[in-house]
């Protein structure tokens, strides 16, 4: 399903259809909430806006479910909604940047503190550090590359599916994915070097 169909006006269904739609929303939520949340977070939605964004995604799902084309995979449809909600949330965060000023501990407790709380497991500490570094590297990518990287590498969508989700030509998707991988790699390498330099300074 192309992204443009999401903008069609919503027609309220009858009572029986509403019950069926509600149960379908429930099923979609139960199966895909975790991936929607992960995708929103990877797409750069501010942690303070994550609840609102996830809520908005499923409100749109409920509204558009009546017009949903069963021939299209639900994941494609869902990621298309998630992508647009994430764009709006990022725009809101940019508009209210003074309110959501980025700090080092914006994701809650630092990875070191969280790992300490779990019994100082070295492996978990390493995972948390990697996650924090990956988030920082994603923050350095521009929006197009970030979306392409998240959908292809994190959510593991195929290039044609990403083309459907984003409404971008397939060749452009391929080139964006390739560029996004390179950019992410270079950012991770750079941040690694910076972290090592800080560690040696201490």
């Amino acid at each position, binding site marked *: 399903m192309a992204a443009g169909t999401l903008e069609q006006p919503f027609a309220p269904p009858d009572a029986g259809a509403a019950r069926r739609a509600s149960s379908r929303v429930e099923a979609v*939520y139960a199966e895909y909430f975790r991936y929607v949340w992960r995708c929103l977070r990877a797409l750069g939605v501010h942690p303070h806006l994550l609840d609102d964004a996830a809520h908005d995604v499923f409100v749109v799902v409920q509204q558009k479910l009546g017009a949903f084309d069963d021939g299209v995979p639900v994941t494609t449809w869902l990621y298309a909604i998630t992508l647009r909600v994430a764009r709006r949330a990022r725009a809101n965060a940019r508009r209210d940047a003074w309110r959501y000023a980025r700090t080092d501990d914006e994701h809650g407790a630092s990875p070191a503190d969280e790992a300490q709380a779990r019994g100082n497991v070295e492996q978990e500490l390493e995972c948390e550090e990697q996650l924090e570094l990956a988030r920082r590297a994603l923050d350095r990518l521009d929006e197009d590359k970030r979306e392409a990287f998240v959908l292809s*590498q994190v959510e593991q969508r195929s290039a044609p599916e990403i083309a459907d989700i984003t409404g971008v030509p397939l060749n452009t998707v391929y080139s964006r994915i390739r560029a996004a991988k390179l950019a992410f790699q270079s950012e991770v390498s750079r941040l690694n070097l910076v972290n090592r330099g800080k560690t040696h300074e201490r």
Partner: protein
Amino acid sequence: MNGSDDDPFTRALRGDLPGPDDEARVRSRLVSAGVLAGAVAAPVGTAAAAGGVTAKVVALPLAVKLGASLVVVGLVTVPVVSHLTSPSGSSAPTLTATLTAKPPALAKAAPAPVTAPERAALVEPTPRAEPVVEVAAVAHETTPPALREAAKAPLPQPTKPLPSVASFEEVAAPKPLDEGSLRAETALMERALSALKRDDVATARAALLEHARLFPNGHLVRERERALERTLGKETESHAH
């Protein structure tokens, strides 16, 4: 590192899934918005727990709420009405007993229990104490010992008898008008004032002193004093020049 499936950073991003708290929080919001049906998941945190209790109270049927409020109103109003309508001597113990027997829920919620003497003091009317006794007690605490001893000593008796009420009336009563003396006073004052008009300070002063000597408590004492002030003022002016 090449961004492939073996990339630990990409795997870390892939494993960044929400916890059950996150899912329950969003689910409760969606249920509130009518997007999802069914019961809200167990609330997280104490604030949410308090909200849950409130929601349960709100969700009670109207009949149950009305019944509960009637019971509470009855507990409060019946003893008070009986206290107001019956003689005070017979109803006071009833009121005290009713207030003492609190419902179990209220007894648990009470922050600090009131002792029996305090409750009796609050409920039963007490006779008003004599204010003199209280003031005397306060004065005893705050007055220095020397003053306290002086206060105990007997008051000195007056050496001369105090003037009676009749003598006060005599002093305060206006004098009967004596036309002869008034005329003489007026003549002296006219002479003094006409001398002042001519700036003859010496003649004016002599006339005023004469008036003061002859009529120290006369009818024109105030006029004499004003004229005397003017005379002194003119004398000062003449000395200055």
